[in-house]
């Protein structure tokens, strides 16, 4: 038994030795796996919800008051603008509720013979969005003059419009230019500039890092009623002397610098006439209903109609706001040439939505288009009185006195004057005789500034032989006018 036992033990030992040997050879201990491998709480992660805010409706009184407005807001689609007008529906609806007519500026001259400079003569506000085509120098100047005359400019860029998916994916080598360049060219006279960036917030955002909350506002009618607005991929806007209106907090960064603090998505020009806005998306549903975005849209609509544009001869023939009654001197009989010229004027005014009315009796609420001769005529005297023009027959020396121009020899001169009193605009065309008056009328639809001398509300044109002023023309000008004109 003992021998057998020894043999068994030896056998077991022989079996165990390689096992133990291999175990010792291959293993240095036992791997202790973690009891649990922690995993993300997939089922507990929730999708951030859209923080919708209740809509704000206009009061009946406000709506009635607004519907009386006869303003035109011009939207640019002529500069390769990368947007669809339907994306602005919330704004155009807000404008419509204020009685505003929306017009589109078309790049095709055959569809839009009036053009930007012409349309700015009667528009209250001009909206330009993501323009990828540069503005001409004359367009920039026209917009500058438009804002100086209390027109309103709204420039909107959106960083999502700056590059197409094809460009991103490297599948398109076609470069479409820069909306920053075009927009900043337009905004330069107003001390406003868009940055080539987008804003983001990794700490507190509206569902995505590029959707930023903005809670710092400068005091301005545009920020009335705002506590928080949300922008969905927005450019920052810079101004030196103007007013940054809507600013991000410390965690809102610019993609250019990856730094933040005081970045503004909206800024107002020093003269309060031009507004630069760095986001288009917030105008669109459902984002218009997020935080106080709807209120901001209403405020933007108010801004666009806030200008009090005074009729100026620079705007001829679009100095009227509503229907216009033609009032003619009793001494002036309508001839075929006169009717032709008035027909052309009527067509031109129709493009601005203004109706020209021929009525025997003056219409009490209509604007007035007065056609008269230098000879005194009681039929039109009351309309000419506010213009403070002294006719030759009322001057002992037989001279014509026009404010700003002084005393003039009336021969060969046509006078154009505009006044605005108690909501009514009066445009008067005066000349020595019927032939010259018709000649003056024919130039109504032309750009009067080009070939007449214009000073404020008064313009002098040569009519009849040798129409148009040149350097050899001699007039007795006021010193003040000479200085102004030489500038």
């Amino acid at each position: 038994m003992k021998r057998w036992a020894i043999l068994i033990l030896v056998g077991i030992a022989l079996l165990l030795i390689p096992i133990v040997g291999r175990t010792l050879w291959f293993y240095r201990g036992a791997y202790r796996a973690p009891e649990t491998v922690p995993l993300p709480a997939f089922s507990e992660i929730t999708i951030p919800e859209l923080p919708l805010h209740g809509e704000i409706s206009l009061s009946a009184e406000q709506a009635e008051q607004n519907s009386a407005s006869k303003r035109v807001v011009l939207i640019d689609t002529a500069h390769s603008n990368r947007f669809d007008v339907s994306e602005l529906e919330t704004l155009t609806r807000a404008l419509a509720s204020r009685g505003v007519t929306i017009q589109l500026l078309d790049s095709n001259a055959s569809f839009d013979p009036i053009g930007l400079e012409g349309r700015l003569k009667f528009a209250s506000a001009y909206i330009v969005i993501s323009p990828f085509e540069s503005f001409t120098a004359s367009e920039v100047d026209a917009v500058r003059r438009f804002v100086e005359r209390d027109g309103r400019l709204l420039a909107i860029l959106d960083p999502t419009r700056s590059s197409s998916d094809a460009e991103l994916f490297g599948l398109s080598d076609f470069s479409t230019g820069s909306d920053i360049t075009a927009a900043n060219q337009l905004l330069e006279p107003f001390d406003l500039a868009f940055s080539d960036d987008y804003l983001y917030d990794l700490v507190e955002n509206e569902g995505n890092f590029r959707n930023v909350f903005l809670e710092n506002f400068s005091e301005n009618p545009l920020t009335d009623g705002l506590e928080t607005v949300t922008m969905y991929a927005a450019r920052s806007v810079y101004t030196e002397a103007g007013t940054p209106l809507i600013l991000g907090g410390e965690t809102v960064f610019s993609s250019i610098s990856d730094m933040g603090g005081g970045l503004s998505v909206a800024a107002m020009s020093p003269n309060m006439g031009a507004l630069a806005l760095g986001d288009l998306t917030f105008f669109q549903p459902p984002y218009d209903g997020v935080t106080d975005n709807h209120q901001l849209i209403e405020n933007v609509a108010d801004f666009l109609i806030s200008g009090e544009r005074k009729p100026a001869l620079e705007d001829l023939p679009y100095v009227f706001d509503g229907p216009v009654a033609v009032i003619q001197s009793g001494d002036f009989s309508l001839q075929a040439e006169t009717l032709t010229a008035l027909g052309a004027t009527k067509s031109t005014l129709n493009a601005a939505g203004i109706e020209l009315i021929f009525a025997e009796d003056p219409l009490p609420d209509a604007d007035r288009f007065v056609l008269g001769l230098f000879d005194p005529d009681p039929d039109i005297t009351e309309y000419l009185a506010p213009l403070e023009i002294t006719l030759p027959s009322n001057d002992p020396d037989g001279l014509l006195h026009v404010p700003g121009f002084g005393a003039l020899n009336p021969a060969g001169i046509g006078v154009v004057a505009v006044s605005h009193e108690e909501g009514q605009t009066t445009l008067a065309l005066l000349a020595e005789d019927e032939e010259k008056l018709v000649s003056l009328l024919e130039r109504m639809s032309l750009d009067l500034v080009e070939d007449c001398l214009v000073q404020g509300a008064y313009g002098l044109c040569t009519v009849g032989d040798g129409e148009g002023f040149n350097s050899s023309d001699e007039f007795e000008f006021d010193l003040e006018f000479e200085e102004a004109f030489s500038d």
Partner: protein
Amino acid sequence: MIPRPAVGLIYLRDALHAFSSADMIAQIQYAREQPEVRAVVLVIDSPGGTVIDTEAVYLELAKLREQKPVVTMAQGMATSGAYYLSVGTDYIFAGPSSPVGNVGVLSQLPPAPSVFEDIVSTGPYKLFGSARDTDLRRLEAIKQAFYQAVSLGRGDALQIGPETLLRGEVWLGGEAQQLGLVDELGSVSQAIEHAAERAKIANYRTVNLREPAGLSPEILFPFFMETTEGGLTPYPRQPGMYLLWIPPTNGAQP
């Protein structure tokens, strides 16, 4: 009787898509079932890929780690979804200049819902899946899960907060180590040695798990978009949600 232990090698040298993830899962399952495979080294050179394929592999790795140590070697790039997998392992090696990180999600939004004359459906999103805005918000939820995975995987080693990590930057291996995104700079050999140490084995062999797992040789899956000349772009062919790094092209940034 006592088989020689092995360190299994699983290679990811493609984007994470349906084919590559299925291959990885097969190898992970094989490693889990084979007792002689005592540790696994994930050798990665990938820009990431689809969300669903990344998450599928990540969850399989977690199951494997309950039994065996798993070490990552970021031999080439380990960005986005590929980094997501890395943080689901026990230890991360990277090459000194290997691109690492790019924590975030990207997606091409579906078209805005509309109706068609000849295609009819039973609901506004039947054809489109979801509203564009909902898709955008889902992106945020996926990002949060990604961030949690990084946070859990890296723990106290991570030297940067979410505000930096979630910017989606790509770091070189050396930078990534300083920031705590990877543990060590090294090579595949070092990763294998480290995996063996963790598994407490010696005199082991290394096995590429592809063949033992019964997989055929790798085939090129048409994941990326092609140029008109037939070359590959870094952009996925199909719209969808991706944990993917797309290197900038023509100066454009995603």
